[in-house]
């Protein structure tokens, strides 16, 4: 097969700035979600490999960037195989943890304590590998995306940054994101076109700081207040010297009234902080997505996102509204089922069967609730994040996409399997 480049019909001149669109039909997506939820329940979750593949196919193939849609070529069988391999790798590890905890005494305890950081590390490793799988299954204009870089190095960096995030009460988060996304994008390729990440951690920090103050501020204030007003060393002394709990409480009331003020302030502060988190979460999510999209670079291609926070809020409100309707329907259905099943079985003289029926109906309701809410979340919030994200971007220098040479090969799905087994799955 030969291709004569010059002989190809002339392409229309592309404008300097081009856009991206999401062309998917909302109802088609809901159909996928509902069918998936039912099949997940029926197959005890084994259908999830097929479900994830269907969703990705839909999202990818309806995402249009400069007049061409993406294509997802991954298959459910690959995911299933990856999962089985991951299980085979994890079984000896879990067995080792269990045996160490059983037999080695203090050393075993040390290993048990280390198991959480180790699994976290493994989770980060899996996240990077899973990203590689998804990228190598992403085709655009007949050219594959791919990802290099060492997943081990990524996992080491990620563990370091997450440690820092925890130690700084989240203040290091913007810098961590900038560095980790930088690592990922540096190793991301579309054909021979290398990616880059231009998002500034410091700018994200400045933008996120007011939100951090609103969420963490009350907590810090409550902590400072209780340290300043209460003489904790004396309270501890009193707690040690008094024998029983009741005596200690009595003594607190008279000797240290400030303790009660501190407790009330702490409770109010925690409530405020939780409320602020709930209210600000969509703002945070929109800010992160906007920042991330605007930082993406491929050679001369730059991307800018003007994502509106209102769109994300709207999605969450729809989620709450649909969720409420679904919950009401659930309660009605559950009560009806109990009212029919219980007396019927009791009348037949089978109280044991009635009890089992009750448990089964309860478990069934729980499963439908969880799967239903998951579907509603994906049908409202997730799809809006994707659609609004895609539609918010403007591409400059998109002609860089016209001259890309094919490169890269498909990678295995073991990373996806690990991520699934370790419960750190992404899309």
């Amino acid at each position, binding site marked *: *097969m030969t*291709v*004569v480049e010059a*002989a*190809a*019909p002339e392409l229309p001149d592309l404008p300097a700035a081009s856009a991206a669109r999401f*062309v998917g*039909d909302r109802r088609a997506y809901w159909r996928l979600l509902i069918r998936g939820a039912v099949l*997940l329940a*029926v*197959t*005890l*979750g*084994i*259908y*999830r490999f*097929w479900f994830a593949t269907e969703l990705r*196919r839909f999202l*990818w*193939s309806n995402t*249009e960037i400069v007049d*061409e*849609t993406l*294509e997802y*070529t991954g298959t*459910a069988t690959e995911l299933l195989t990856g*999962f089985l391999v991951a299980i085979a790798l*994890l079984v000896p590890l*879990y067995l080792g943890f*269990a045996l160490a905890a*059983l*037999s080695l*005494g203090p050393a075993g305890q040390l290993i048990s304590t280390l198991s959480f950081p180790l699994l976290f590390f493994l989770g980060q490793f899996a996240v990077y590998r899973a990203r590689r799988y998804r990228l190598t299954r992403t*085709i655009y*204009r*007949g*050219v*594959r995306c791919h990802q290099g870089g060492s997943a081990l190095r990524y996992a080491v960096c990620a563990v370091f940054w997450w440690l820092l995030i925890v130690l700084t009460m989240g203040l290091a988060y913007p810098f961590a994101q900038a560095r980790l996304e930088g690592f990922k994008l540096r190793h991301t390729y579309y*054909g021979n076109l290398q990616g880059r990440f231009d998002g500034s951690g410091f700018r994200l920090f400045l933008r996120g700081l007011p939100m951090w103050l609103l969420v963490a501020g009350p907590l810090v204030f409550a902590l400072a207040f209780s340290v300043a007003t209460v003489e904790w060393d004396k309270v501890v002394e009193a707690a040690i010297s008094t*024998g*029983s709990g009741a005596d200690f409480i009595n003594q607190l009331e008279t000797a240290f009234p400030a303790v009660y003020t501190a407790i009330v302030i702490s409770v109010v502060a925690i409530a405020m902080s939780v409320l602020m988190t709930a209210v600000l979460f969509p703002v945070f999510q929109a800010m992160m997505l906007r920042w991330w999209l605007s930082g993406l670079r491929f050679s001369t291609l730059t991307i800018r996102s003007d994502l509106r926070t209102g769109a994300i809020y709207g999605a969450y409100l729809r989620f709450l509204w649909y969720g409420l309707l679904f919950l009401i329907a659930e309660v009605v259905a559950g009560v009806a089922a109990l009212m029919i099943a219980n007396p019927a079985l009791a009348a037949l003289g089978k109280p044991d069967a009635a*009890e*089992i029926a009750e*448990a089964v109906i309860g*478990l069934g309701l*729980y*499963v439908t609730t*969880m*799967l239903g*809410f998951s579907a509603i979340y994906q049908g409202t919030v997730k799809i809006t994040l994707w659609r609004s994200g895609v539609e918010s971007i403007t591409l400059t220098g998109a002609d860089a*996409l*016209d*001259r*890309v*040479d*094919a490169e890269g090969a498909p990678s295995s799905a073991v990373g996806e399997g690990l991520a*699934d*087994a370790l*419960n750190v*799955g992404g899309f």
Partner: protein
Amino acid sequence: MTSGAGIYFDGSTSARHRVTVDAAPEALRILDGDGTVIAAWPYAALRAMSAPEDLLRLGRLNDPSLARLEIRDAALIAVIDDYADGFDRTGISERRTRARVIVWSLAAAASLVLVAVVGVPMLTDRLAPLIPLTVEHRLGVAMDAQVRALLDDGKSEKPFECGTIDTEMPGRDALDTLIGRLERAAALPIPLRASVVRRSEANAVALPGGHIYVFEGLIARARSPDELAGVVAHEIGHVAHRDGTRSLLQAAGLSFLFGIMLGDFTGGGLVVIAAKTTVQSAYSREIETAADGYSVRLMTDAHGDPRALGAILTRIAGAIEPGSKILSDHPQTKDRVAAIDAAAASATASPQPLLTPTDWTALKRICG
């Protein structure tokens, strides 16, 4: 012969080629603007790749180059569809695959449940005796510290363990006499470490490594040494059957089985816990029934009254037990008592008092 417009990507670069697609009977021909044939794809190798609704995106089977041909012309799509039976525009083969997946998943789920209900207990029954007693002992020491911390509510000013201060010493001696008699009859491979603790519930617990805790409330409600001994013998049954280790192994096995295999689909977490609780309760009920049987035999061997266990169980539990049967970790009391009485009927009893009245009075005062 039908032809129409299409967009072709040759798979080696990302350049868009506007082409004319010619659906000839022998092969799908791709022509450039001059009418030169760029490629001819046989219909048998055609695959419809994932694409938006109104677009037919064609690739070739086993083609490593990822060349793609995109067609939006509905009439042309229909013609190609007629020629090529390799791709699945109507979704029939996809539906067939899905049906197969569901059937196999159901089979996998059934086998999972079978392994959980039958396989895991079978495995742990065989594994538990293989775990060295030294390991069980260390496990017992670790658990002992945790359980003590859990049970000790610190309400009393006296030490948590009864029988440790001077006034309570005679009670401790009486307890040792009682335990000693049972222990001799039981001939266990490990020494028992029994103690009475200040808890008001009428209960007793056994831990791996031979630790047995009798609660103060049980001693208060026991009307004879045989009733107390019956409960202690039940706990010795747990020690002899190594139930603590078995339960640990079972819990680990079930967590693994349900936790990893079911994966992390939403809501899976609680289903896993519910499934685990239900299956574990079933195991536990079997274990309790076996310990009751052991108590009857041990009490017979120790020349006590094997029926006393049933008597104290009835008194403690009362007539009606509330709560769900499938989630309860002990069998229902009336079933237990009936089983105990049936087993005791076949036992040749030659009762001798387990404790002298003086010792029994002392034991009743072990907690002051």
